[in-house]
C-alpha cells in the first residue's frame, strides 16, 4: 500500500529562494570536479580507438607503443575480466555486464566509430595520448548500419552475432532487432472504423547528445588488498559501484566511489566509461590513474539518445473526442540492446484520455554508440510525433487545438498507453494556465520584410521515478544540522533537499549544511536522474528530520523530567504542556537552545531516513513557441518562449525555473539544429561543439516560466520531479509554429535551415 499525504500550505522554508549551499565554491572556482582530483604518484591513461564503425579486429600490435619512454602499461580486451552474461539492476534500467564490457573495450569486432581497442597508462597525459596513436590495429571493414531501416533489411549484416532477439516473446537469431514489445488496449481497429477524422504520419529523428560541458573524467586506484577507489563525475555513485562490481568482478564492498562535483549529465553520466579502464590500468601499474575523455570521443562514444522512426495514427469522432490511437516506434539502441522503448510507450499518449490504444516498439542494434538516458529518455521523440499529429488532426477537422487538448485531457484514473492508471495529475490545470497566460493572449507581432512568424504549442510528459535514497542528520552544538546524502548535486539539489529537512525542523535553510559523500559513508542512494532527487532524497531528508524530532522529544522529556506524551513540536519550538496533576508548568525550548544543552546532557543526537519509493507524481507541461523564419536563408529564430508545468510543489522556485528553462533550451536545440550527422560508411561527422551546434546565448530568447502547483499526495510536501518534462514539448511546439508560419509540416528532425529552404523551394 502506497503511503499518501494530506498537503499543507503554510510553509516557512519551502517556496523561498536561499543562496544554494555550494554556491560560493562554484562561483570562486574552488569546487572540486573529477578533473581537479590529484593524488600522489598519479599517472594518466588514454585510449586507442577504432576509426571504423563496423570492422573485424584481425590483430592488435602494441609493441611500438610499449617502447615509448614513459609508457607504463597497455591493456586490450584480453585484460578485461570475464564478465557474467546476465542483466543487473542499475536503478534506472538494467545492464548486462558482458555487453557493457564489450562496449568499453572491443573484442573481436569494433561496433561503432571510436570503439576503444587498447588503453595505455603513461607518466603524463601527453605521453599516454601520443602512445595511443602508435597502437597498430589490422581491421577488416564490414558494412555499417546507421539507422533502423538499414539494420532491419533482410540481408543486413548482423552486428551482434550472439544476440538472441525477443519478438513478442519469440526467440529470433541472426537479427539486429533486439526486442519487439506490444501494448494493446480496447478495440483499436474497430474504433478507427468509427472515427470521423483520422490523421496518420511517420516522423524521423537522428541521435542527439546530452551535451554536458564537462567531458567524462575519472581517477582510479587499485590497492594491494584488491580494494578499488574511484573519483569520478557520476550521476550515481552507487550505481557506478554496482556497474563496476559486475565489470571488474569484485564485490561491491571492495569498491568505493567518490562522486565529485559534476559538470552536467542529463542522464549521460549514469553509465561508466573510463572508470573500469582506469581501474584496470591502476591494477597493472600499482599507481593511481587518471583519464579525461576528449570531446570528439564524448560525442562519438558516449550516451546519445536514440534516433529512429515513429509512425502514429490517431482518430477522433465527429464531436472531437479521441477514440483511437496506434503507433509503431523504432529506436536505435546503438551497439548494444537497450534503447528507451519502454518509456516511449509509457509517454506517447499520456496527455490524452483515449479508450482504444495500441503501441508496437522495436529496439534496434545499429553501428553507433550505445544510447544512454537523456532527460525524459524516449519521450521527446514520441511527443514530437503525437503532438504534430494532434495539430494536423485538428486542422483537418477545423478544431481549435487548445480546446481539443482540454476536451481530451488525461486525468486521475486515465489509462496510459502501457496500461498504468494515473494518480492525481495536473494536465488540465497546465492547459488552463497556458490558455490564460499573457503569452497565449498576446499578439505575435509583425515580422520584417522577408520573414514570417508562427506560434505553436505542445504537451510534454514524464512519469518521474522514486527508488532508493538515504539521508543522515547530525545535530551540531550551535543549533545547525549536517545533512549527509548520496545524491550527486547536478543543479541545486543540495538546497532543495536541505530545505525539506529545515522545514520539518523549523530552522533556516542555511542552518542545514549538506554534504554529498562516497559510497562507504552513507546508505544506498539511486542515481540523480528520473527527476527523482528532490522527490526521493528530499523524502528521505523529511523522514530523517521527523526521526530527529522524535529523538529530540525523548531528550526534552528526559531533560525536563516530564512525560514524553506531553512534549510537542511546532515551528522549531518544543513545548511541554502544563502537568495539572503534578502541578508542573508549561515549558518551551527552541531547537537551537536544545542543541546546545544536549551536547552536555546526552551527547550527539543524529538520525537516519531511508526510502524505497515505488512510484512518483507524474509531470505534465505545455510550451508556447513563437518563431520567426527568414524566407531566404531558412533560419528560424525563437522570438518568444513560455514553459508551463505542473511541478507539484516548488521547493526552491529558482532552480525549478532553471530546470524548465534548461530543458526548453535543449529541446529547442534538438528541434532546430542538433543531430548526429553520419557518414554513409558509418561514423559521426560533426563531433565537435562547433559542428554539433548547441544553442548559444544568442540563439535563445528569455524563457518565460509558469509554475503550476498540483501537489502529488505521494510526497509529504507534494513534490513532483521537474527536470525531464521540459525537454519534451519544444520539438513539436516549434514544428507546430513552423506549420503555422509556413503551412509546411516538418516530420524529420532537426528542422534546420537547409530543410526549410528545401521545403520552401518545393512549395
Amino acid at each position: 500500500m502506497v503511503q499518501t499525504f494530506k498537503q499543507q500550505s503554510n510553509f516557512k522554508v519551502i517556496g523561498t529562494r536561499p543562496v544554494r549551499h555550494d554556491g560560493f565554491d562554484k562561483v570562486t572556482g574552488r569546487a572540486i570536479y573529477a578533473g581537479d582530483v590529484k593524488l600522489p604518484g598519479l599517472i594518466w591513461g588514454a585510449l586507442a580507438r577504432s576509426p571504423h564503425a563496423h570492422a573485424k579486429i584481425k590483430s592488435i600490435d602494441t609493441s611500438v607503443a610499449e617502447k615509448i619512454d614513459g609508457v607504463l602499461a597497455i591493456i586490450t580486451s584480453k585484460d578485461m575480466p570475464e564478465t557474467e552474461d546476465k542483466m543487473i539492476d542499475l536503478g534506472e534500467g538494467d545492464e548486462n555486464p558482458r555487453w557493457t564490457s564489450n562496449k568499453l573495450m572491443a573484442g573481436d569486432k569494433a561496433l561503432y566509430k571510436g570503439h576503444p581497442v587498447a588503453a595505455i597508462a603513461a607518466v603524463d597525459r601527453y605521453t599516454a595520448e601520443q602512445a595511443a596513436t602508435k597502437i597498430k590495429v589490422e581491421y577488416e571493414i564490414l558494412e555499417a548500419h546507421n539507422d533502423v531501416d538499414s539494420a532491419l533489411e533482410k540481408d543486413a549484416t548482423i552486428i551482434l552475432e550472439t544476440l538472441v532477439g525477443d519478438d513478442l516473446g519469440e526467440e529470433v537469431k541472426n537479427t539486429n532487432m533486439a526486442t519487439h514489445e506490444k501494448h494493446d488496449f480496447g478495440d483499436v481497429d474497430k474504433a478507427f472504423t468509427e472515427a470521423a477524422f483520422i490523421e496518420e504520419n511517420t516522423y524521423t529523428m537522428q541521435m542527439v547528445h546530452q551535451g554536458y560541458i564537462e567531458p567524462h573524467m575519472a581517477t582510479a586506484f587499485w590497492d594491494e588488498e584488491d580494494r578499488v577507489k574511484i573519483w569520478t563525475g557520476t550521476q550515481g555513485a552507487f550505481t557506478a559501484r554496482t556497474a563496476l562490481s559486475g565489470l571488474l568482478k569484485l564485490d561491491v564492498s571492495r569498491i568505493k566511489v567518490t562522486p565529485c562535483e559534476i559538470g552536467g549529465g542529463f542522464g549521460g553520466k549514469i553509465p561508466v566509461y573510463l572508470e573500469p579502464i582506469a581501474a584496470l590500468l591502476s591494477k597493472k601499474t600499482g599507481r593511481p590513474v587518471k583519464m579525461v575523455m576528449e570531446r570528439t570521443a564524448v560525442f562519438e562514444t558516449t550516451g546519445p539518445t536514440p534516433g529512429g522512426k515513429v509512425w502514429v495514427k490517431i482518430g477522433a469522432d465527429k464531436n472531437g473526442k479521441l477514440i483511437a490511437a496506434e503507433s509503431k516506434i523504432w529506436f536505435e539502441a546503438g551497439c548494444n540492446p537497450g534503447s528507451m522503448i519502454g518509456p516511449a510507450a509509457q509517454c506517447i499518449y499520456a496527455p490524452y484520455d483515449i479508450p482504444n490504444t495500441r503501441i508496437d516498439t522495436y529496439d534496434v542494434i545499429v553501428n553507433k554508440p550505445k544510447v544512454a538516458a537523456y532527460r525524459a529518455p524516449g519521450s521527446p521523440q514520441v511527443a514530437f510525433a503525437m503532438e504534430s499529429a494532434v495539430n494536423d488532426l485538428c486542422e483537418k477537422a477545423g478544431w481549435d487545438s487548445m480546446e481539443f487538448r482540454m476536451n481530451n485531457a488525461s486525468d486521475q484514473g486515465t489509462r496510459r498507453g502501457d496500461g498504468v492508471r494515473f494518480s492525481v495529475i495536473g494536465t488540465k490545470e497546465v492547459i488552463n494556465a497556458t490558455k490564460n497566460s499573457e503569452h497565449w493572449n498576446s499578439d505575435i507581432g509583425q515580422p520584417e520584410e522577408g520573414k514570417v512568424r508562427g506560434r505553436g504549442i505542445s504537451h510534454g510528459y514524464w512519469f518521474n521515478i522514486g527508488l532508493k535514497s538515504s539521508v543522515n542528520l547530525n545535530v551540531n552544538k550551535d543549533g545547525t544540522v549536517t545533512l549527509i546524502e548520496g545524491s550527486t548535486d547536478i543543479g541545486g539539489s543540495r538546497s532543495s533537499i536541505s530545505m525539506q529537512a529545515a522545514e520539518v525542523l523549523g530552522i533556516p535553510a542555511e542552518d542545514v549544511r549538506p554534504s554529498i559523500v562516497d559510497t562507504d559513508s552513507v546508505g544506498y542512494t539511486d542515481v540523480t536522474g528520473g527527476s527523482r532527487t528532490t522527490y526521493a532524497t528530499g523524502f528521505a531528508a523529511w523522514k530523517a528530520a521527523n526521526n530527529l524530532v522524535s529523538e529530540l522529544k525523548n531528550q526534552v522529556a528526559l531533560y525536563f523530567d516530564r512525560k514524553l506524551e506531553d512534549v510537542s513540536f511546532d515551528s522549531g519550538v518544543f513545548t511541554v504542556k502544563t502537568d495539572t496533576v503534578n502541578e508542573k508548568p508549561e515549558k518551551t525550548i527552541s531547537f537551537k537552545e536544545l542543541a546546545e544543552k544536549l551536547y552536555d546532557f546526552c551527547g550527539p543526537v543524529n538520525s537516519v531516513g531511508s526510502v524505497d519509493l515505488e512510484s512518483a507524481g507524474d509531470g505534465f507541461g505545455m510550451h508556447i513557441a513563437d518563431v520567426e523564419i527568414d524566407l531566404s536563408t531558412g533560419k528560424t529564430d525563437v522570438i518568444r518562449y513560455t514553459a508551463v508545468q505542473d511541478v507539484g510543489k516548488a521547493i526552491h522556485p529558482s532552480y525549478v525555473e532553471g530546470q524548465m528553462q534548461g530543458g526548453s533550451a535543449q529541446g529547442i536545440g534538438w528541434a532546430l539544429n542538433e543531430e548526429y550527422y553520419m557518414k554513409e560508411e558509418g561514423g559521426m561527422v560533426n563531433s565537435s561543439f562547433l559542428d554539433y551546434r548547441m544553442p548559444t546565448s544568442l540563439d535563445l530568447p528569455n524563457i518565460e516560466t509558469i509554475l503550476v502547483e498540483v501537489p502529488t499526495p505521494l510526497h509529504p510536501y507534494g513534490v513532483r520531479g521537474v527536470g525531464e518534462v521540459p525537454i519534451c514539448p519544444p520539438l513539436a511546439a516549434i514544428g507546430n509554429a513552423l506549420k503555422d508560419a509556413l503551412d509546411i509540416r516538418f516530420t524529420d528532425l532537426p528542422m534546420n535551415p537547409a530543410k526549410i529552404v528545401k521545403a520552401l523551394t518545393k512549395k
Partner: protein
Amino acid sequence: MTTNIHITTKINNQPYEFLAPSYMSLLDALREIVGLTGTKEGCLDGNCGACTVNIDGRIVDSCLVLAAEIDGCDVQTVEGLATSEGLHPLQKAFLEEAALQCGICTPGFLVAAKGLLDNEPNPSEHRIRHWLAGNLCRCTGYDKIVKAVQKAASES
C-alpha cells in the same frame, strides 16, 4: 626530447615563475603546474569557453594558448575575481539569480562577463547575449545568466 620553457608571468596580480613543456597549453599549465583548477576543461578546441581567462585585458580560451605565450603577461582567472573585500558583483549576482546549475561553465562565464563589464558598464541584453555566445552552458538556457550579468551591471 621535451624542451621546457621558462615562464615569468603574473596570475591574479601575483608573480609566478615556472617551467612548462613547449607544447603545453595555458589551460594545462594553470591546472597542472600552477595549481589553479578553477579554469575548466570542456572541449580543448576553443568551442565551449569553459577555460576562459583574461590575458592583458582580452578574454581568451586558455586551451588554445600555449603556456609559453603568457611570458610577461598579466593573466586573470576565476580565482582572481573575489578580493579580501568579498565576492565580485558578478559572483554575487550569479548566486542571487541562481545563474548556475552544475557550475562547470560558471568560471568561464564569470571571466567573460567581467571582460564585458570592464569595458562596457551598461550593456544591452542583446550585447550581453552576443558577448557571451562564445561560452556554452547546457543547464540554464542562459536566461538566468543574462539576468545576473544585467543585475551586476546595474549594481556596480
